[in-house]
């Protein structure tokens, strides 16, 4: 019963937060200078109508506003949007009135998710061994170079790393493409760029976690049983260090999700991040609100999953 109560409370707070996010976004958008009419896509569509004279223009405007509910007061617009959002219907966008946003989002979000997931895998597959080696070879050249590399990965922003990777792999070595999407090779550099910081964070975390764990009494007990070093380090120390790692992965996922906005720009990948940016630039409000909502929701849900996972993995924790 406790578990359901916990889940219920979290869901409630997530919903409240998302409502707040959507409301804030709506109010901000309407505070923006400039008329919808002046935006490019709308202008193009309008141009066709313009030639037909003033009356036709005004008629077009009225219909436009009605279609997107822009003639209603803001709080009502928020209400309408949320009601539809609950059933995953986000309506048409300004730029593409014929395609409902939910269709667009599905494909774009999956692209972003692919990159982020690979980044996450890299963080684990590369970061954990890095951390283990650094811990075992503490204070040697290996340790210092691995940790130095991690520092760079954490401090240098993902888009700068992306640029560096492109210069190295595309310009100098010419093995990977600079941009585009569709095949496996397009995945590698973006995933690496966005995963660099998480790899570094995981490596540092595992290193310090293992060093701390190795000081514990039960490690001595393990050795006293005659177990070899590899078993003790991996079976006992690493195993106990992996559990708190879960709590680190949550923020890393959020970080990568948001970082994808920039990395997708650099690699010209048509993911959710690019969609958000173009929506902001072109003032495509329905698209803007929806993509913000998806990002915020994804982040909050992942955090919830991480918390639950942690409780499952550590036998000492009970969910409140």
């Amino acid at each position, binding site marked *: 019963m406790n578990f359901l109560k916990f889940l219920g409370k979290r869901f409630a707070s997530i919903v409240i937060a998302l409502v707040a996010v959507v409301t804030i976004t709506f109010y901000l*958008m309407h505070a923006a200078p400039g008329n919808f009419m002046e935006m490019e896509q709308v202008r193009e569509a309008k141009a066709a109508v313009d030639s037909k004279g003033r009356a036709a223009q005004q008629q077009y405007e009225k219909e436009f506003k009605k279609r997107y509910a822009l003639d209603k007061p803001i709080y009502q617009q928020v209400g309408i949007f949320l009601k539809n959002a609950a059933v995953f219907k986000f309506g048409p966008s300004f730029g593409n009135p014929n395609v409902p946003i939910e269709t667009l989002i599905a494909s774009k979000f999956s692209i972003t998710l692919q990159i982020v997931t690979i980044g996450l895998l890299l963080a684990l597959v590369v970061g954990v061994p890095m951390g283990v080696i650094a811990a075992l070879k503490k204070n040697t050249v290996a340790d210092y170079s691995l940790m130095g590399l991690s520092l760079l990965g954490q401090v240098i922003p993902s888009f700068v790393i992306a640029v560096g990777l492109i210069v190295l792999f595309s310009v100098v070595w010419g093995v990977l493409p600079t941009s585009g999407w569709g095949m496996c090779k397009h995945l590698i550099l973006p995933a690496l760029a966005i995963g660099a910081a998480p790899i570094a964070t995981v490596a540092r975390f595992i290193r310090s976690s293992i060093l701390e764990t190795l000081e514990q009494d039960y490690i001595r007990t393990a050795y006293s049983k005659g177990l070899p070093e590899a078993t003790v380090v991996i079976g006992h120390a690493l195993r106990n260090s992996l559990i708190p790692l879960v709590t680190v992965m949550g923020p890393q996922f959020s970080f990568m999700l948001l970082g994808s906005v920039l990395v997708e720009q650099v690699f010209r990948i048509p993911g959710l991040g690019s969609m958000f940016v173009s929506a*902001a*630039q072109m003032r495509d409000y329905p698209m*803007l609100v929806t993509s913000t909502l998806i990002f915020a929701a994804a982040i909050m849900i992942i955090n919830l999953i991480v918390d639950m996972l942690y409780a499952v993995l550590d036998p000492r924790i009970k969910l409140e």
Partner: protein
Amino acid sequence: MATAATMEKAILPHNPEDAEASEYGGMAKFKKDFRRFRRNKLAVAGLIYIIILFTAAFLADYVAPYHYSTPSPPHALETSTIHHWFGTDELGRDMFSRILYSARNAIIVSFGAVLIGLAVGALVGAISGFYGGILDIVTMRVVDIMFAFPQFLLLVILVAVMGRGLGTMFVAIGITSWAGYARLVRGQILSAKNNDYVEAARCLGSGNGHIIRKYILPNIVGPIIVAVSFGIPAGMMAESAMSLIGMGLRPPMPSWGNLISAGMMEMYGFPHLVLWPAATFGVTLLAFTFVGDGLREMYGKE
């Protein structure tokens, strides 16, 4: 005449470090803490780099060999030469100067943003933490909502609303960061408030103002300075990220983000256009990180 202050001095146990601090003001304690900072070689190196960068950036008009927008077509797209240490771009503008001016803009934006974020956040956090009650509860809900909104997305939306430019940039970044400072300051004030010293001082009749000045302020200064030292590079990153996606400073105003995204267009033939800005940006961020770590060590013992 026995005032609360003199009674405090008589009754409360003396911490010799605090005595030093109160006798000679903050200076003696600061000098002692700074020694801890000096031990961290990387932090010192970072600090030196930052000081040099600052000076050069502020005196950019005198230091830079060229103005950032002076075109010089005959010299377009050269790599490092005596006249142009970092080469020139496609319009013949000197890269070194452009990078220097980018640094200046980055500093202006990040400092402005931190100032705004800190001012708003500290005020909100302080009032909320000090007075508590319903005010505190409501304020913390607002802060929670701010945290629910992904910071970078909010920034993009704000800039879309407020328009591009130097001024709007630091206001917008400030707005996205105040919540962090609010939480930090509130937390510090709460723990300082519950300090035994404060309780004792109250029993002796000290007023709020006195308590704030003597017990609370000195304790919160440290973490705030550390937060600021990390907030500045964060501001720089935010600004350059915005410029990269074309929503930052308008050209010809140079920004690290601008230079990098422009440089990427000519990457195949002229990688120096993207490498120099990227490298200098990276080094600057590293310097701030080292200094931040050093400051953390310095104030960490509190």
